[in-house]
């Protein structure tokens, strides 16, 4: 019932619905926590645990973070560990990488990943490739994090999804959390990882509350990078998604369940390394695949998944061609009606599922 309400709201007012939506049920839980607070707590705990960890970026200190993700951290840790930077991405990303090379463990925040494009040379050429170029002499333990992909009404230059671009590059790990549990476990894992990790958050998910079990609240709760999670079991079709779209897949699954169609929803969690095995195992059970992403279709996440399925053992188990549900292949428009129709909606996912299942 709660899910159906959500579905109806999502159709009309995505942002409001998301902010008010019900949490997705889990076993006997201890607390409810938003993605924002999960990220905040994860950083707080890691800053406390290891004095080499520090955070830098625009507005992260005295402003408490542009999206309040670093709220309270500057007050607690001070200027040395929480550093406000000027608006110079290429410079401060490079400084973060240099600090990582010299023994620190920086968290470099991009206010959105759109701005990381200015610094992308430092992420790829200075961070990602260095361990390989040095044949193991120089490692770069750094996390680049920030909101990625579409938001609401921020138009073309502020809405791009970078999962495919960063996911393309060897030497990087790329993760894309959906739930508060994902955010917490993956961020802690990313900070403790000795390699460059691109951590793609989502602005629209920041305020969404999730239940968090006691186990997940423990200080050493880590989610292994490179492993997907099955959020919902099903027999008829496999839905693979990352970040906010996981929620839409679950909503679509809830609607279809009433019609007797049981979807298996996989939350990728990691873009690189990609857990192809989890997807293959699922397809071998369901025989159908639909991928769902917010980014552009050409050379995107779905394209990679489909290619891998073609090339791997699961191909023979497909009863229909695998398809992708993606953002529309255009720069993001501003007007609400146009924006709403630029990214996948629940009805688009349901439509693609039914076409694939031929029902």
């Amino acid at each position: 019932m709660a899910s159906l309400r959500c579905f109806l709201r999502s159709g009309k007012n995505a942002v409001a619905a998301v902010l008010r939506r019900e949490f997705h049920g889990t076993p006997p839980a201890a607390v409810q926590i938003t993605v924002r607070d999960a990220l905040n707590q994860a950083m707080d705990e890691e800053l406390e645990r290891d004095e080499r960890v520090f955070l830098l970026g625009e507005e992260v200190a005295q402003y408490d973070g542009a999206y309040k993700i670093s709220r309270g951290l500057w007050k607690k840790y001070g200027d040395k560990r929480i550093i406000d930077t000027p608006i110079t991405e290429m410079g401060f990303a490079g400084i973060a990488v240099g600090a990582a090379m010299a023994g620190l463990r920086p968290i470099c925040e991009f206010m959105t990943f759109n701005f990381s494009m200015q610094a992308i040379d430092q992420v790829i050429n200075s961070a990602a490739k260095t361990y390989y170029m040095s044949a193991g002499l120089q490692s770069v333990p750094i996390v680049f994090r920030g909101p990625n992909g579409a938001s609401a009404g921020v138009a073309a230059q502020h809405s791009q999804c970078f999962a495919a671009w960063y996911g393309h590059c060897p030497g990087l790990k790329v993760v894309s959390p959906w739930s508060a549990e994902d955010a917490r476990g993956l961020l802690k894992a990313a900070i403790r990882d000795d390699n460059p990790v691109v951590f793609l958050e989502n602005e629209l998910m920041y305020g969404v509350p999730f239940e968090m079990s006691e186990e997940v609240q423990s200080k050493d709760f880590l989610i292994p990078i490179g492993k997907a999670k099955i959020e919902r079991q099903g027999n008829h079709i496999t839905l693979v998604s990352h970040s906010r779209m996981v929620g839409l897949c679950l909503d679509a699954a809830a609607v279809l369940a009433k019609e007797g169609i049981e979807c298996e929803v996989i939350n990728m969690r990691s873009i690189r390394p990609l857990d192809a095995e989890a997807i293959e195992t699922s397809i071998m059970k369901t025989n159908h695949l639909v991928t769902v992403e917010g980014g552009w279709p050409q050379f995107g996440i779905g394209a990679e998944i489909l290619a891998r399925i073609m090339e791997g053992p699961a191909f023979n188990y497909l009863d229909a061609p695998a398809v992708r549900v993606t953002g529309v292949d255009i720069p993001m428009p501003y007007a609400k009606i146009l924006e709403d129709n630029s990214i996948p909606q629940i009805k688009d996912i349901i439509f693609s599922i039914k076409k694939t299942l031929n029902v």
Partner: protein
Amino acid sequence: MQNMLTVIANALKGGAKINGAQTVSEGSRVVISARSFANLTPQARFDIKRCDLHRLDEGPSVQTVLTREDGLRYYRTMQTMRRMELKADQLYKQKIIRGFCHLYDGQEACAVGIEAGINPTDHLITAYRAHGYTYTRGVSVKEIMAELTGRRGGVAKGKGGSMHMYAKNFYGGNGIVGAQVPLGAGVALACQYQGKNEVCVTLYGDGAANQGQIFESFNMAALWKLPCIFICENNKYGMGTSVERASASTDYYKRGDYIPGLRVDGMDVLSVREATRFAADYCRSGKGPILMELQTYRYHGHSMSDPGVSYRTREEIQEVRSKSDPITVLKDRMISNNMANLEEIKDIDAEIRKEIEEAAQFATSDPEPPLEDLCNHIFYNDAPLEIRGTNPWMKLKSIS
């Protein structure tokens, strides 16, 4: 007599900063050993060029004391670098070295002088003309040459090549023009954060000097008072473009604006050393970053694919060689002040020639890295990984 000599020798070896080190002129010769160098001067004071200053009331000293020991060491290091680069030139023309090869000959005084002015525990990063710095930062000629020839005995196991060599406290070797400067400022941030009184020397060229990210680095380094010595090696040409055609202002030592700067004769190893000491002291005292412009010259073109004579005259190159060659300048200084004799210089040269030959021999005979190494070193401290090969059936193994 012997005791007195030992005492004097020990006092003199104490270093250039001891005030008691009087100018030892040719008139008074102190015997400090019973070897054939009996009549040689153990040290001398030299005049060096005054630096142009920007936002500084005082600059480095205009006099410096050079000990025989240091002088011979600088000579040996510079000559080794020179011969190493010339050998690389040879190997490149024989197609044993491939790809990019940016040679440093002519600029030796910069690398050697800088190293003499800092500690091994300090940090250094440069761009792609890096073979000299790789050497001064502690990598052997053998490992450098084997990296150039792409062999498993190379410092990066053959996987990096000319522009990607690393060592302790040496962060390469960087191929993207200007990208190393924010990295260097970041290393300086780590120095400040870790509180070990270390500095980072961050080098770039006259071509890179116009890069936006360098100014971004200046801003943050000054704001946060990072212990960063920014050094512009101005060899007058950014690839084929002279400084006049690339920069609206060629006073590179002033381009840091609010950052104090000095312009130094980069062909004189003693000037570079003195200026580096001055700059390091400045940074270590917590005053923030400082900028040095070293005026220097490269004999080779930008890289081995550039003959280097389409944008400058052979006469110009020859003039620098005959009047300002850093190795010759040092050698002449030492000989004319009786700090060394020709014979021992010849011996050193012969030793170096042998070392280079052996290194080249190793570099040409060492095998290439094994194919099993292809996918290794993607991630540090990680479980083994499977990497896709050129086709879906090729599953390669990657370990840390």
